[in-house]
């Protein structure tokens, strides 16, 4: 806006402080504080899909004080003070000074860049953050960087290798020092040293700087030559391998979700292998275990239970619940199963008392919410669909249910609602609306009927509702409802209680006065409003209760079962109440009847402590009774009765910030299942941190909502489910997928493979680099401790680039120890990762010992064979080069489990490439090694050496490998055999002789 006129402007030109006007369906260009909107009450509806992925409409308010002002007509000056730009999209604090009044601004007054204005003709606001300072832009960063456990361990080993490198260099320089000292007098004229330089006429020392410096130079030179010991290339190879693994994970059709048309997403590239070592899974419930598609299931009205389980055909009632508006038929978008009896009763409302109650009940469902109905066109011009948009899926489900029973919400503005009741359009004034907040756990709406009577409808969680319901009224109904509630929640349904109250005129006036006062209060408005709400929400008459089913996702029970068989502990952290959580626990097979349940549900620290200690004693008993020494907690549940720990959020508050943490962890680690209910988002993270702090085991958190973000970021591996609750979790996660059950292939197949592959690859890379350094080092011992390299400089450079780089990368991406089928069949195989079988200290040292042996063979066989012969540096260097490269590749070949054509190509290809490279290098006449390879390769000795080196070097490894595999087989080994021979039996049939087909080339 310039000079009192609105002008079109580009986004990039908008500056802070400018007044911006946005029309309907436009995207907001920057973060603005709302001044006024087309709605007289100052409401603006925005869609925040771009920000958090939630497709429903959210309400934002302009301040009453500014709403009345029209910037086009009158000028007014205001000053907005707000916090510095930050990335919190759910919070905003500031104040505005207009006409000398100071107004406080909150997150409901700001509309963020990227949102779209909906259902509102126009909105005017002041830009407060622009460009890169907008919250949307500030949130444009990836997940926090995590480092995989394998890599952390690897770094320790690299430090070890560095120490070793320094040791090698020190040995070299000390020996060089001794040699220089003992030949001190000979150096001047020694033909191969020649300290004296006569060329300048007078005698001077040529490139000799005193023996101290000479030693320093030797040390530095040897650092340069031996630095390959530190496998820098390993980091690059690991990145490449991870990219390859990510490619396969994304491409896995098993992890494609058809419902949301989404593939698996790899958002973090550096923790792939952690997926193979998970010991704890922390799962959210809503949207993760369950679909978060709420379905209205049962209603208890006036003490009578109407379950829609015996529901009729859906098509049958479809026509009935449509409404005619201006000759057009409106239909709700979602179909709901209905109870015919209830439907019948609801149609006949007004006729009797029962009907009246049902009328009120459904009116409450249709009215007592913050749903915004959107009319959507369909292909049929006469039929329009009503799409209920709201923040809570529960409310949507209830609104759809009400519509199905003939109470269709058609229009909502801030002042009134229009409800179509069995074809009759009725208009109600919304006199007041107390939004849901987590303290009250309920919401209420005050409706003014056309006949001027005023009614209050309240809907909320059972615990909070039952306390405000007048118990003297209808005690029987209350009791009946309570039993219904109990039975619903034990079925795993989410329950809500509906209450109402006729407000008398005086009561209404009293409320109205308080409400007006509160809603215009400057300070603590929220608290005041809450107080007003709690005052009026009192002594209610109970109408009934609803039960909504939160459907379990496909395959959840099976997945949880396999996860537990694999020795993974599944912890469910949910915001739901205990009963719901437990019932979901049962339906998802998390809890079974054979389990001992320990429930901790206390209100103060002392009782918490008592409970915990009792539980600990209890949990130790079965262990003591079994009298089996047990080091592996994961197996403990196999012995005693498995224990399930159920703990609620209030108890966690006391536990998490006190010394009780330790006890909780001890208790929890004895339990096979832990269910935490009523937990806040930060507590979820707290629980993850509790486990992460106390064990070295890997944790994985999986969730779908914004409330899981902190947990996802805290855990070693965070998995986001791209579900109903927006993309917050996905944005924060390391991996994202469509369904909970994909966790099984993700962990058991990809996690297992990734871990095995990368673990092997790291060890192999250490070996690969150490062996060439050792060969170089041995040679230094025979060159008067000067760091001469027999292996051509080019070859030693190309060694880790061309000669040996590709096989390890390809094998790291493609080799697989077991087939998918077997891995899924025996989830226990996942334990290999948890026990760190593919990479550990022992393997490291064994490999290093093997490296030592192999380097000795590689170096000393040619040394002795050519001792005192005419061999020149380049020829023996070429022999060493070729034998190291072929040996290293054969070593890898020996450990490859599945040879597909890519692996064949790359292994044999890199050997051929090496030979070609060596030939090319030796074909350059200005290199001192000119034609050396061709001359030596013409002798029999060369080939004898080569063959001898390869066999002698690999012999011990081969024998040890066989002994281990045959006499001390790992689970993986047995399964591999089972897989191979089971297949062959099927294919080979009666041709038993061909059980061991001999391939063309034995794997030597």
């Amino acid at each position, binding site marked *: 806006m310039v000079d009192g006129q609105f002008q079109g402007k580009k986004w990039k030109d908008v500056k802070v402080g400018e007044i911006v006007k946005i029309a309907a369906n436009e995207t907001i260009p920057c973060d603005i504080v709302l001044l006024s909107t087309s709605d007289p009450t100052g409401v603006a509806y925005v869609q925040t899909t771009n920000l958090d992925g939630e497709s429903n409409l959210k309400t934002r308010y302009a301040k009453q004080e500014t709403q009345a002002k029209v910037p086009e007509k009158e000028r007014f000056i205001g000053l907005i003070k707000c916090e510095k730009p930050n990335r919190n999209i759910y919070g905003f604090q500031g104040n505005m000074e207009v006409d000398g009044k100071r107004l406080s601004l909150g997150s409901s007054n700001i509309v963020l860049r990227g949102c779209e204005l909906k259902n509102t003709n126009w909105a005017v606001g002041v830009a407060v953050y622009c460009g890169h300072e907008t919250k949307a832009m500030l949130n444009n960063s990836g997940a926090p960087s995590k480092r995989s456990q394998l890599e952390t361990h690897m770094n320790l080993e690299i430090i070890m290798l560095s120490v070793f490198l320094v040791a090698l260099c020190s040995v070299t320089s000390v020996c060089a020092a001794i040699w220089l000292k003992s030949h001190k007098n*000979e150096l001047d004229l020694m*033909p191969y040293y020649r300290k004296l330089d006569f060329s300048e006429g007078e005698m001077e020392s040529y490139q000799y700087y005193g023996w101290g410096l000479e030693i320093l130079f030797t040390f530095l030179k040897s650092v340069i030559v031996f630095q390959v010991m530190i496998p820098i290339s390993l980091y690059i190879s690991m990145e490449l391998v991870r990219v390859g693994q990510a490619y396969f994970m994304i491409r896995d*059709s098993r992890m*494609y979700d058809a419902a949301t048309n989404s593939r698996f997403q790899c958002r973090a590239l550096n923790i792939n292998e952690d997926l193979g070592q998970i010991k704890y899974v922390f799962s959210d419930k809503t949207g993760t275990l369950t679909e978060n598609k709420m379905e209205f299931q049962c209603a208890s009205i006036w003490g009578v239970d109407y379950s829609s389980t015996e529901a009729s055909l859906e098509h049958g009632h479809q026509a009935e619940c449509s409404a005619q508006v201006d000759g057009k038929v409106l239909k709700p978008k979602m179909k709901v199963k209905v109870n015919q009896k209830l439907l019948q009763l609801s149609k006949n409302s007004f006729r009797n008392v029962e009907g009246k109650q049902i009328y009120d009940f459904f009116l409450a469902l249709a009215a007592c919410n913050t749903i915004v109905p959107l009319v959507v066109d369909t292909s049929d011009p006469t039929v329009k669909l009503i799409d209920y948009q709201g923040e809570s899926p529960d409310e949507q489900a209830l609104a759809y249910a009400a519509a199905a029973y003939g109470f269709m919400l058609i229009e909502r503005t801030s002042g009134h609602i229009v409800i179509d009741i069995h074809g009759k359009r009725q208009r109600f004034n919304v006199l007041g609306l107390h939004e849901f907040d987590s303290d009250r756990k309920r919401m209420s709406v005050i409706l003014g009927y056309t006949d001027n009577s005023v009614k209050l409808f309240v809907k909320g969680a059972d615990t909070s509702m039952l306390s405000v319901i007048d118990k003297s009224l209808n005690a029987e109904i209350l009791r009946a409802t309570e039993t219904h509630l109990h039975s619903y929640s034990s079925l795993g349904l989410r329950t809500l209680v509906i209450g109402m109250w006729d407000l008398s005129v005086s009561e209404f006036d009293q409320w109205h006065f308080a409400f007006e006062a509160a809603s215009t209060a400057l300070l603590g408005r929220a608290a005041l409003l809450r107080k007003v709400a709690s005052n009026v929400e009192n002594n209610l008459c109970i109408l009934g209760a609803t039960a909504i089913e939160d459907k379990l996702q496909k395959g959840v029970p099976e997945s949880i079962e396999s996860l537990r068989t694999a020795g993974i502990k599944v912890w469910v952290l949910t915001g739901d109440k205990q009963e719901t959580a437990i019932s979901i626990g049962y339906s998802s097979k998390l809890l079974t009847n054979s389990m001992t349940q320990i429930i901790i549900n206390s209100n103060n620290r002392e009782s918490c402590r008592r409970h915990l200690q009792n539980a600990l004693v209890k949990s130790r008993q079965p262990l003591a009774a079994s009298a089996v020494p047990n080091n592996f907690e994961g197996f403990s549940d196999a012995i005693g009765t498995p224990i399930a720990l159920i703990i609620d959020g209030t108890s966690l508050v006391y536990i998490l910030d006190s010394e009780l943490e330790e006890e909780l962890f001890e208790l929890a680690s004895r339990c096979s299942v832990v269910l935490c209910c009523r937990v806040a988002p930060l507590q979820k993270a707290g629980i993850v941190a509790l486990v992460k702090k106390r064990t070295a085991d890997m944790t994985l958190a999986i969730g779908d909502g914004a409330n899981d973000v902190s947990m996802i970021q805290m855990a070693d591996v965070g998995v986001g489910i791209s579900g109903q609750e927006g993309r917050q979790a996905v944005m924060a996660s390391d991996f994202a997928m469509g369904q909970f059950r994909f966790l099984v292939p993700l962990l058991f197949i990809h996690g297992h493979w990734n871990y095995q592959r990368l673990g092997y690859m790291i060890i192999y890379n250490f070996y690969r680099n150490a062996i060439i350094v050792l060969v170089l080092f041995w040679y230094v011992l*025979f060159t008067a401790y000067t760091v001469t390299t027999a292996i051509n400089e080019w070859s030693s450079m190309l060694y880790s680039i061309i000669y040996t780089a590709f096989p390890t990368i390809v094998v790291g991406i493609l080799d697989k120890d077991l087939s998918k089928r077997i891995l899924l069949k025996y989830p226990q195989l996942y334990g290999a990762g948890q026990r760190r079988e593919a990479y550990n200290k022992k393997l490291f040292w064994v490999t290093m010992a093997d490296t030592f042996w192999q380097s000795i063979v590689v170096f000393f066989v040619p040394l002795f064979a050519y001792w*005192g012969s*005419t061999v020149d540096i380049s020829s023996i260097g070429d022999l060493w080069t070729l034998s190291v490269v072929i040996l290293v590749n054969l070593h890898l070949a020996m450990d490859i489990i599945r040879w597909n054509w890519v692996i064949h190509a790359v292994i044999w290809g890199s050997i051929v490439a090496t030979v070609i490279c060596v030939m090319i290098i030796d074909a350059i006449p200005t290199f001192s090694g000119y034609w050396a390879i061709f001359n030596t390769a013409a002798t029999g000795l060369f080939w004898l050496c080569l063959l001898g080196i390869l066999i002698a070097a690999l012999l011990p490894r081969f024998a040890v490998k*066989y002994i281990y595999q045959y006499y001390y087989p790992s689970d993986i080994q*047995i399964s591999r055999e089972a897989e191979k021979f089971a297949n062959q039996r099927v294919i080979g049939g009666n041709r038993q002789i061909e059980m061991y087909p001999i391939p063309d080339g034995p794997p030597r």
Partner: protein
Amino acid sequence: MSTDPSTSSAAAAEEKSNKRKSKKPKYSRFTQQELPAWQPILTPRWVITIFTLIALVFIPVGLAAFSASQRVVEVEYEYDTECIPDSYKDNATAYIKDDNTNKTCTQKLSIKSKMQAPIFVYYQLDNFYQNHRRYVKSRSDEQLRTKDKENDVSSCSPEDYVTINNKSEPIVPCGLIAWSLFNDTYKIQNKDKEVVINKTNIAWASDRTTKFGSDVYPKNFQASGLIGGAKLDPTKPLSEQEDLIVWMRTAALPKFRKLYGKIETDLEANDEIVVVIENNYNTYEFGGKKSLVLSTATWIGGRNNFLGIAYVVIGSMSLLLALGFLLLYILKPRPLGDPTYLSWNKNPGGLR
């Protein structure tokens, strides 16, 4: 969750129908990591076969190599101390540095068994580090190859330039290696007749034709104050200076031989040959040793028993391992792929 190929192919077919918008990954054996693969498993049969095969190959080859090495007839004569006159015994360096002393040294050697032509004549140096870092770098391969690169001596210091008439002239061939060219000479007489030592074609053909230029002539060589070794005939191009070419192939190890020449007549057993050595080369400075070696050759090269023995040892080890494994297999076989051996089946209590 079974990998039934029919369902996946059905899914693929279904996907084709609504391909347009679906993000469903295309099915291929590659992306699903189901490429056909050969999966070797170390079964006892395999392992025993492999070890036996190794034994079967290595023992005969080893024996052949050993006998070949044994067939080589070698006469080695270390002359560095014997060719110093008694008066100079305590001061060998002074003797070798003095231009006026008589360096000729005659010695009789007896041939133990028949040596068939060609007999290779080597000089052998010990404790001479031709692989010393300072030494191997002190050469200019460019200069050796082309005439135009005569001034390319930057790597050759301290033997790079020589000052002649106050002018700095490049040395061709430059560097310590060329400077220290071996300069002892040998003459051999058998039954009072001169045995011809053929000194042509003693260097690699590749070096003669390509590496050392035929238009590069020695220049200013051994002209500086300190003479390191042999002088070169300035009228012969480097490609024909075979002693230099051989010498410039720096040895890999501190004890090495270099080909001096070839004798193309047989030497009979019990022949007494007389070698006349011009003992010029200074190994006394640093305690090196020099020897004259006459040797025949077989397919394995010179005399070296190491490889033969190593092969036999490896072969026997393999044989032993094969037998050991066979015995173990008979005594304690394990059925392959038996699920009862899985850890969770073996001890359900989780005892490990």
